[in-house]
């Protein structure tokens, strides 16, 4: 299900004194199975962009097309899209409302038309994918859990439909490092199985480690769009935008500024390690 945006603009509060243009003339195409990171300064329109893609907002101009169909067109089956596209907001635990874990996670399947055993199987898989044991916790109240556990339930609730597109808005804010690692592993596992992932984050390290492509927004415009390596290659430009780059890339950049010969196509810690080991070896050889 490729996502295509054609000349999309969006304005909040049209016709009021508080009119804000949040997005201007965005053109974009996201292919199946991509892992795309979205970055930009606060208020640049990242959340607006992904909400447009999820059909939660309607563009003022332009078209949002998923799988070739305009999702804001008349008669488009949005309910159907919601089964195939999931979105996880910054504090997803705020959406929990049911009396048991099982019911809450199953909420997304309510209109799926599946039979009860099928639903139960999916709920079980979703809860186990976030590290719960289904039989132990299925009838507990999700409201009595700790914050981190609640977040995992909420994530299970978004994954239960087994979406082909997964959109994440600041998903790692406020989780402890272990939880963050587990979560990112889960997401990249889904991506390897063909799920398109779109992740908004201020955390450049996470984007450098996982995203294969980066979109940079500035004041509602899409100003950079390309493979992570090439977007992160322009360190000065990103720093001028007050965004910065991931730490491995920054280290490579600093080494170069000091006059050290060092590869500059580095974005993840893995790249950095490899480059360091390689340069040590070449030193040893000479």
């Amino acid at each position, binding site marked *: 299900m490729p996502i295509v945006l054609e000349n999309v603009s969006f304005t909040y509060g049209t016709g009021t004194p508080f009119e804000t243009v949040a997005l201007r003339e965005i053109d974009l195409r996201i292919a199946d199975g991509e892992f795309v990171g979205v970055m930009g300064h606060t208020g640049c329109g990242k959340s607006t962009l992904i909400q447009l893609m999820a059909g939660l907002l309607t563009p003022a101009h332009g078209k949002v097309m998923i799988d070739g169909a305009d999702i804001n067109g008349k008669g488009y089956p949005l309910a159907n899209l919601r089964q195939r596209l999931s979105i996880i907001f910054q504090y997803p635990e705020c959406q929990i*409302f049911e*009396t048991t874990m099982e019911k809450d996670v199953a909420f997304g399947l309510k209109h799926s038309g599946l039979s009860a055993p099928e639903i139960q199987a999916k709920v079980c898989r979703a809860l186990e994918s976030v590290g719960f044991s289904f039989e132990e916790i299925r009838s507990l*109240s999700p*409201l*009595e859990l700790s914050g981190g556990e609640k977040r995992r339930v909420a994530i299970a609730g978004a994954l239960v439909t087994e979406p082909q597109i997964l959109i994440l808005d600041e998903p790692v804010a406020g989780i402890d490092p272990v939880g963050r690692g587990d979560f990112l592993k889960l997401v990249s596992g889904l991506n390897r199985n063909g799920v398109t992932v779109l992740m908004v984050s201020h955390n450049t390290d996470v984007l450098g480690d996982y995203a294969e492509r980066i979109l940079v927004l500035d004041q509602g415009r899409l100003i950079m769009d390309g493979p992570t390596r090439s977007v992160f290659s322009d360190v000065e430009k990103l720093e001028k935008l007050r965004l910065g780059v991931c730490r491995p890339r920054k280290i490579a950049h600093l080494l170069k500024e000091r006059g050290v010969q060092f590869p500059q196509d580095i974005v993840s810690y893995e790249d950095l390690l490899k480059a360091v080991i390689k340069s040590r070896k070449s030193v040893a050889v000479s």
Partner: protein
Amino acid sequence: MMTTVKKAIITAVCAALCVVLPTAFHAVPNAGSIFLPMHIPVLLAGLICGWSYGLICGLIGPLLSTLFTGMPPMAYLPSMLIELAVYGAATGLLMSLVHTREIYTDLYISLIGGMLIGRIVAGLSRALIFAGGSYSMAAWATSYFATALPGIVIQLVLLPSIVFALERARLIPMRYPQ
């Protein structure tokens, strides 16, 4: 037990929800008159904090809503204030009087009683103030029961669920601790 400060803040939050909740249903046609979203926080303030706070919430909530969103319009405000204040006070009073050892029973008795008393008082006030005594039984029955029936049913299911969820999340003290 909740402190006075906590009760006051909860009441304030409920009053703010009187402004905010109806706006969430703006997009839905006729939601305001069918689902009565402004009643929910007022009833809740009464149930949780007691009759005086329910009363205050019933007065402040609609007032702030009119000031900030223009809904309900000023002209309907007086009758709405009376109605909501009575709901809040009556449910709160019943909740403090009824102790059956079963929270759902307490809640249903207080809610049904409060809604009934509120509708009677609102009908009386409307008859006395707005229609000069000629407001008929039938008009009262249609406007307060027939059109509001879905709202009443929803409130009877929704409010106990909210109270239950708040207890579970340990945001309010348990009524009957095990």
